[in-house]
């Protein structure tokens, strides 16, 4: 979408401007990619499969945050709180009512939507920094409520959730999980891509650009902001529900501020305002600790530093985030686009100021 072709590519119908995949080459590559994704679990080892599952699971939350922050321009530092809300709704319904997953999933989505309204209400009055701070405050309150439930009901170590069942068949095998999560991630991605080229998505971009102008164009700023929060937190709560089932365990400690920061890092490192960026950022952030681990093994530092792997991860993660913020604010997508431009424009260096972009 919206990428300049080297030459000889002209759109002749309005519908082509809307197409998600507009050339044959793109369609072919997409088919190859889907085939590769479908074949992946049959060639990957157990660790690689688990990593893929983690990436797919996290991509839901990252796409949701990208819609909210990257497109609608609303800062949220409460993402872990929303994940926790989905996970706790699932855990509580399972523990109290032994509810099956086809009840807990919609319930989690509903809880997410309701919390989205609550998280979004401050955005009607607050902007920028103050909005970020109010979502941060809500994060702490959600986590407190979850922890309170745990201690009051005597699950102080956490709530154990059985795998979802359909008749006799239980979803407890990594390969089956892979396909479920792949379907969920693909559905979310398609939903987001479609939403963004609809009226709602255009309204979000408009309020991101400038609220006064958006209002002058006839967009209800309040409705656009609230809808961004509601859509984003519904997806996030569904991700939280899947997270609860995938881990089989819900506890307030799992949803620290650090988790929020990881999701924000996915959006930043991937590149603001791009769904591809959300996916690239997810892959980067999820695989990063494992890459650090592998690098330490390779350098032979693993024995000496084994007790502080956690600390090494922490500082390396902070460093990478700083490097991206300072040197490549466009994120991985920016790098990717620059590489693309380099090949497309050779022997020239700059894009023309006017014309297709």
């Amino acid at each position, binding site marked *: 979408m919206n990428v300049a072709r080297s030459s000889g590519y002209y759109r002749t119908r309005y519908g082509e401007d809307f197409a998600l995949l507009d050339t044959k080459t793109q369609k072919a590559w997409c088919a190859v990619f889907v085939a590769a994704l479908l074949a992946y679990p049959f060639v990957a080892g157990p660790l690689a499969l688990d990593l893929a599952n983690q990436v797919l699971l996290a991509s839901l939350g990252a796409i949701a945050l990208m819609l909210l922050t990257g497109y609608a*321009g609303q800062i949220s530092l409460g993402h872990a709180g929303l994940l926790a809300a989905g996970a706790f709704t699932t855990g509580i319904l399972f523990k109290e009512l032994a509810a099956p997953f086809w009840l807990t999933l919609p319930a989690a989505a509903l809880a997410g939507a309701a919390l989205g309204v609550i998280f979004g209400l401050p955005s009607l009055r607050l902007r*920028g920094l103050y909005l970020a*701070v109010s979502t941060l405050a809500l994060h*702490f309150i959600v986590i407190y409520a979850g922890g309170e439930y745990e201690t009051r009901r005597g699950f102080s170590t956490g709530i154990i959730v059985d795998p979802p069942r359909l008749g006799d068949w239980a979803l407890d095998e990594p390969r089956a999980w892979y396909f479920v999560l792949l379907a969920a991630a693909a559905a979310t991605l398609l939903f987001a891509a479609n939403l963004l080229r609809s009226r709602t998505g255009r309204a979000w971009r408009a309020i991101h650009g400038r609220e006064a102008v958006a209002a002058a164009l006839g967009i209800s700023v309040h409705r656009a902001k609230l809808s961004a929060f509601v859509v984003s937190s519904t997806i996030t709560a569904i991700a939280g529900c899947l997270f609860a089932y995938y881990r089989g365990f819900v506890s307030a400690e799992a949803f620290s501020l650090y988790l929020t920061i990881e999701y924000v890092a996915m959006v930043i490192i991937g590149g603001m305002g791009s769904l591809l960026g959300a996916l690239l950022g997810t892959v980067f952030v999820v695989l990063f600790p494992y890459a650090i681990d592998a690098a330490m093994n390779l350098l032979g530092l693993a024995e000496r530093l084994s007790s502080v792997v956690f600390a090494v991860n922490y500082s390396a993660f902070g460093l990478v985030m700083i490097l991206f913020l300072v040197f490549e604010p466009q994120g991985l997508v920016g790098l990717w686009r620059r590489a693309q431009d380099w090949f497309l424009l050779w022997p020239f260096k700059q894009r023309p100021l006017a014309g297709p972009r």
Partner: protein
Amino acid sequence: MQIAVNIAVLASIYALICCGYVLIYRATRVLSLAHGELMMLGAYGLYATASLFKGHPLIALAAAAGLALAVGLAVYAALMWRMTGESVLAAVLATIALGILLRGAMMLAFGTLTQHPLRDLGWENASIGLPGGARISAVGAALILSTGLVYGGLFAFLRGTRWGMRMRAAGQNPLLAAQRGIGLHGIYALSWGLATFTGGLAGMLIALDAGLESTLVIIGLKAFPAALVGGLDSLVGALAGSLVVASAEVLLIQYVDPLLSDVVPFFVLLAMLVVRPWGLFGTREELDRV
């Protein structure tokens, strides 16, 4: 009576931490979420100097305070000057990333065990009886005293000195200030230095009182609601906000539920954001877009 003393001690802890948030925000319009980690770094600075200057506790304290000032200047020189003029989100995220980096680095350098700098300095934390039957620890009294000194010093600095006037000017209108020949980078670096100095002081005193461990970061994070409640660009507001948040926290813990302690500041913050987002003493401003 004891409750009043507890409120006073907690409020002065919050106030001492808060003035860092306020100093940085007032000059540079950045909310530094790395403040908790910088506090902890200050406390570790004391731990390091305590073993370096054995038997000279006052020299160790002074050296640690100087170190904290230098760390603040270094943070601005190394990272934050690149964030001037960037969006609010980018600057806040840079401070968050800095916080993560610092926390990891501190775990690597100092380990994760709880340290007791008070013992290393060779001091005792005596308990002092007050009229009315209340008791206060010596470090608690020192906390209240140093908060008073720091705030007095800051008011005098901002009102009475040329650098203080420059800092206020840069906070009010950076463009005009720069055109009148004020070096913004110098001012911004100074505000980071001062903020880290006061934060480091708070970190040291808390570590002297309760031991040095990773919960220090959480105390730092719990203090920023106080700064927001008072108004992010007002030092008087920071004092008032600390008092409000500390009394709410102490009273609710006493009479409702001790488990509430971690969330009370955030409840107060949310209530404030709904009623009066710019805080008790803050100036109403056109808030920046993302």
